[in-house]
Structure formats: structure tokens, C-alpha cells
């Protein structure tokens, strides 16, 4: 599988970094091709909300920076994994900045999904998604919001499979390896 990993960990977040390393190790052990984007070292401007990616240069963001490469990599991957601190039940700024730049990969036109209006897909296929959240405290309310958000995003981004896990910052490294393996297995990336 071609796998894209969005590493949203900040310099002082050793736990998320450790999680990313475990993912990469496990994926490579099973012959996946992994591209990692270190979000805090990558200059990605925030989406301007101009919809130029739909009406001016359809499918391509008007901002010419690494956000374009990101959108391209997402479309060309089989699986996209993001690792983000859960902030107020959502993604952290670094990760959200990257995700907001993905609307060029869907169509401006509408279709109904489960009775609601959403955008049509632009491409024939989209990657599976694993969204990993990390938290310092076990707050169920935040975990519920994060997992619901991942589910809602999967509808909008036409993800054929979406999985989310929230890890607590104090989990033992040994247990982490097993959990990472399980979620990758569910996504079909390891056997």
C-alpha cells in the first residue's frame, strides 16, 4: 500500500512522535511504502476560503505551496493516517491547517448522502483514513466529539474506510505497538 502519514506532533510532544515512529516501523515491516509529512516543519498556508480550487483552477489550490503536494499525495495514497493532539475535541491547528487544504480534491457539485447534502467526489477513488488523536487526560466527552468528527469528515471526503483511535499520553509503549498493529490490520495495511 501507498501510505501517507501526517505527523501533527509538535516539538515538545514526544508521545505523538513516538506513535508516528511506531506506525512507520510497523508499516515498513509489512512492505508498505510510507511518505511522512512532518507538519510542524512544512510550510502550509491556511485555506483562504476563496473556492478558487473549484472555480478558477479546478482541483488545484490557488496557493502554490506544500498544501498542493499534500492534496496530490492524499489522492494518490491508499491510506492516509493523521496523528493529532485532540484539541477541544477537534484536530490541532497544525493538522487542521493541512486538512482544510484538501477541499480541491472534492467536487463543488452536490449529491445526497444519507438524506443530507454533501459534495460529489472529484476522483474515482479515495484513500482509507486512520485518524489518531492523543490526549493527556481521559475525557470521554472530547473522545466522543473527536470520533464523531472523524466519521463526519469521512462522509465529506468520501473515505471508503475510516478508523479513529484516541491514545492517552501515559499509555505504555508496549501496549501501543499492539494497538497500532490492530488498527493497521483493520485498515488492511498489515497481516
Amino acid at each position, binding site marked *: 500500500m501507498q501510505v501517507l502519514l501526517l505527523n501533527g506532533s509538535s516539538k515538545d510532544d514526544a508521545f505523538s512522535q513516538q506513535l508516528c515512529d511506531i506506525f512507520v516501523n510497523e508499516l515498513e515491516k509489512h512492505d508498505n511504502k510510507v511518505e511522512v509529512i512532518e507538519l510542524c516543519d512544512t510550510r502550509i498556508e491556511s485555506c*483562504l476560503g476563496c473556492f478558487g480550487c473549484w472555480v478558477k*483552477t*479546478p482541483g488545484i489550490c490557488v496557493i502554490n505551496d506544500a498544501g498542493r503536494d499534500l492534496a496530490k499525495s492524499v489522492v494518490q495514497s491508499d491510506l492516509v493516517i493523521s496523528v493529532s493532539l485532540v484539541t477541544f*475535541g477537534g484536530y490541532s491547528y497544525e493538522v487542521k491547517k493541512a486538512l482544510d487544504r484538501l477541499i480541491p480534491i472534492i*467536487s463543488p457539485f452536490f449529491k445526497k448522502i444519507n438524506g443530507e447534502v454533501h459534495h460529489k467526489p472529484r476522483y474515482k477513488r479515495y484513500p482509507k483514513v486512520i485518524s489518531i488523536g492523543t490526549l493527556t487526560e481521559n475525557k470521554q466527552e472530547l473522545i466522543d466529539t473527536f470520533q464523531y468528527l472523524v466519521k463526519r469528515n469521512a462522509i465529506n471526503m468520501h473515505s471508503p474506510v475510516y478508523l479513529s483511535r484516541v491514545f492517552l499520553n501515559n499509555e505504555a509503549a508496549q501496549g501501543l505497538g499492539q494497538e497500532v498493529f490492530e488498527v493497521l490490520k483493520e485498515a488492511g495495511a498489515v497481516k
Partner: protein
Amino acid sequence: MNKRALLLIGSPKPASSTSEAVGDYLLDKLRQYDIEGEKIKLIQILKQEDGINELISAINNCDILILSSPLYLDSAPAIVTKAMELISNDRIAREHIKRPIMLAICNSGFPEAHQNHTALSIYRHFANASSFEWAGGLALGGGGSIDSRPINSLGGMVRNVVKSLDLTASAIADGKHIPEEAIKLMAKPFVPHWLYFIFGQFGWRIQAKKYGAQKNLNDRPYEVN
């Protein structure tokens, strides 16, 4: 001393936005109750060198914090997330802070107001984590119909938005939370679904024509065969 309301605009659009149009209307209404109003665009202030300190001092001076923001991927736009992270970290680090009330208005492109609910949950969690008293959230579907225009210029189409904001202003001025009735009125759709689809189909084509891109709307620049 009069109470002070601070309106934060979460849309990254540099000029006008639906978030601002709706927020402006509410701020004007609050002024009628002798509440002082100040407005800050997050995208502008966070670009300034000392912007974050300016933002934080405005928050520390307010009694009512209003966030008006578009829905981006079922949640807060990146710029709002950044502001929330910075504000929250600052408030957690301070010992003595006021506890203003906070309300949020979220407007989505899709017509169903309930698509804003995840974002409103995020804003509620932010309020709770950052010592604001959560006064509730208003979800507005089909924000594109307002299209950044002043609410007062839109006539009957926005009658429920107007009623909702009037009720909200009166309750907030009274020190209360957003009333249920205001939440329901704001969530009422402007146009039936089928009309929304037709607008959508033509709207994007008309906009694309300006750039000579109307034939390319379905391009797949990153497709691999």
C-alpha cells in the same frame, strides 16, 4: 459601567463574510441594549506581530465573547483552532481571570443546520476548558445564501435569522443564555433542498465562467491511471 461584547470573526476571507454579516447584526442589536461592541477578525489580528497579546487583552476586557465562524470540514477553520489554542493556553496560565460568557454562531455551506453541531461541540469544549461560561451556539445552514451581505439588506429571506438574533441579543443583554426558540429559528432552512441543488449546479458554473474554467470543473489533475 456598560457591559462589553467582543465579536471574533473566524472566517479567513479577507473582506466580508457571512460570519461577519451575521456577527455584525448581533453586535448592533446588543448596542441597542447599551452593550459596547468590538470586532476582531482572527485572520488579521493573528498576522500582526503583537496580535495575540492584543487579542488576549481584548478578551480579558470583555463580558460577552461571541465567535462567528464558518464550518470547515465539520469543525473550526484552522485559524479559529489556532486562536482557541493560544487563548486557552493563556487563560489556563493566568490565576485571576474574569469569566465572560461565550456564545458561538456557526454557518455552513450545506443547508442542514445540524451539520454545524460538531463544530459547536468543539466551541463548547473550548469554553469549558478556558473559563468561559458557555451560553450556547446557533447553527445556520446554507450560509452561501447570505453570501457575505448585510443581514438588513436581505429582506424576508432572512426573517428567521433576524428573529433568532433579536431573541439572542435580548437574552444575552439580560445575562441569560441563548433561548431554545432562537436556536430553532436559526436552524430553519432558507430554501427547499431541490432549489439549493439547482442554485449549486448553476452557481459554480457561473463563477467558473469568469475565469474561463467552466469546462474544467470536473478536472482530476492528480489522478493516476
